[in-house]
């Protein structure tokens, strides 16, 4: 537990040192959402229909932007060796890394959700479902993303590669995340969708740390 907190605190401090990059990621989320009406047209009816999916897809893409920062810098300067040496177990390190990644690229999207919902014409009743769905689903994105980041840790400019291999793995989260929001907006019972979304996140919490640990061992011989 102490280890988890220490690593998360260290990661957050490092993220704060490079706050400009982080602000870039958050801005990407906002700008991409603003691009949507510009390309599709300002018709509120069309916009509100595609809004849940668009918000989810953009959140997914935005959370891929910072994958390169999860393991590559630590691998380059050697601190990953020390982290792995001091970790009670490598899966715990992966868990800490994902938690920190989620705090800076998952949680902010939850907080930005009201803005996205209103901008895309979902109106006020779309704010809660979107924020809740993002809250339940984005941890899975960070966990899967961390595994992809571990797989590409020694690769120079591995960010795009990590996104390439991670994106197909996140399809279930995208499908059920979008469904949870749009079913709520249609006034139907969206409980099951939220449950499945939560199940994906829990499964990712259980499996991703081990997959990430196997990935680190594979690429760092």
């Amino acid at each position, binding site marked *: 537990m102490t280890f988890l907190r220490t690593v998360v605190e260290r990661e957050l401090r490092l993220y704060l040192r490079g706050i400009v990059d982080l602000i870039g990621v958050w801005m990407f989320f906002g700008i991409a959402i603003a691009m949507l009406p510009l390309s599709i047209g300002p018709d509120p009816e069309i916009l509100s229909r595609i809004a849940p999916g668009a918000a989810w897809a953009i959140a997914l893409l935005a959370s891929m932007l910072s994958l390169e920062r999860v393991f590559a810098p630590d691998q380059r300067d050697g601190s990953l060796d020390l982290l792995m040496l001091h970790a009670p177990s490598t899966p715990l390190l992966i868990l800490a890394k994902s938690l920190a990644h989620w705090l800076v690229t998952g949680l902010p999207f939850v907080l930005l959700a009201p803005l996205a919902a209103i901008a895309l014409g979902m109106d006020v009743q779309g704010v809660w479902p979107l924020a809740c769905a993002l809250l339940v689903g984005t941890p899975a994105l960070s966990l899967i993303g961390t*595994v992809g980041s571990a797989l590409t840790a020694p690769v120079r400019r591995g960010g795009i590669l990590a996104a390439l291999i991670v994106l*197909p793995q996140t399809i279930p989260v995208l499908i059920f995340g979008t469904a949870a929001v749009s079913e709520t907006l249609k006034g139907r019972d969206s409980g099951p969708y939220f449950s499945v979304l939560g199940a994906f996140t829990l499964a990712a919490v259980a499996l991703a740390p081990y997959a990430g640990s196997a990935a680190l061992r594979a*690429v760092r011989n």
Partner: protein
Amino acid sequence: MQAAPLCGLSATENAFITHAATWTEVMAKALHRLANPARFLRIVAPLLPWTAAGAAVCIGAGLWFGLVDSPPDYQQGDAARIMYVHVPAAWNALAGYAGLALASAVALVWRHPLALVAARCIAPIGACFTVIALATGSLWGHPMWGTWWVWDARLTSVVILLFLYLGYMTLIHAFDEQGTGERAATVLALIGAVNLPVIKFSVDWWNTLHQPASILRMDGPSIDPAMLLPLFLMAGGFTLLFVCLVIIRMQTELARRRVMALRRAALAVPQASDA
């Protein structure tokens, strides 16, 4: 080697453990025998002409029965004959990923060097079959559904399968050192194999327009036996072709490594004499 009896267990449990250990050993030994590249090449060299000939015969006969000697579909007419290429290609695309995952698992668990080679050789061939399945499906879809492409569940799943293949192939080539890329791609292949059923379930739930499965059903196939014969011939032929291509690629890859090793050794000799 016998596993030592463990304290606190009944005789049956100990016998079971010993038995399981023996079986694991037998399997590990069989795999271990194949881990020698020279022995592997000796075993597969005679297999190669047989698989190649088998593939040629099966595909030839399948094409004859499929294109000439089988009835046209009562609804789709002659266009349905594209099925004899499309369906076996799709089966092989899936089976290829299963083979890739299996080889990766063997490589990861037993550190089997040839399994790594097999996995990296399976990937491009499986990706090719996936592309064939997608292309023929698109050609078939145009006259039947009136569109080259629809986002239906099965089509989407096959596209995602292609992405998984491509991700594997990109990752394997992303590292400076070949072995690192192979190990990383192995882990990715296994993650994909675990996730694939979940993706399939999600996509199925997401949307379905495609006809339901008509070969593997509880109440027997719903398709005419006259169409089943060429279909199975083509499926067998494609599978043999797959195996044949994997063997050729593995032979080439092993030869390439041998050349690299010899070249390194040749370069190392003058340096050694200098010192």
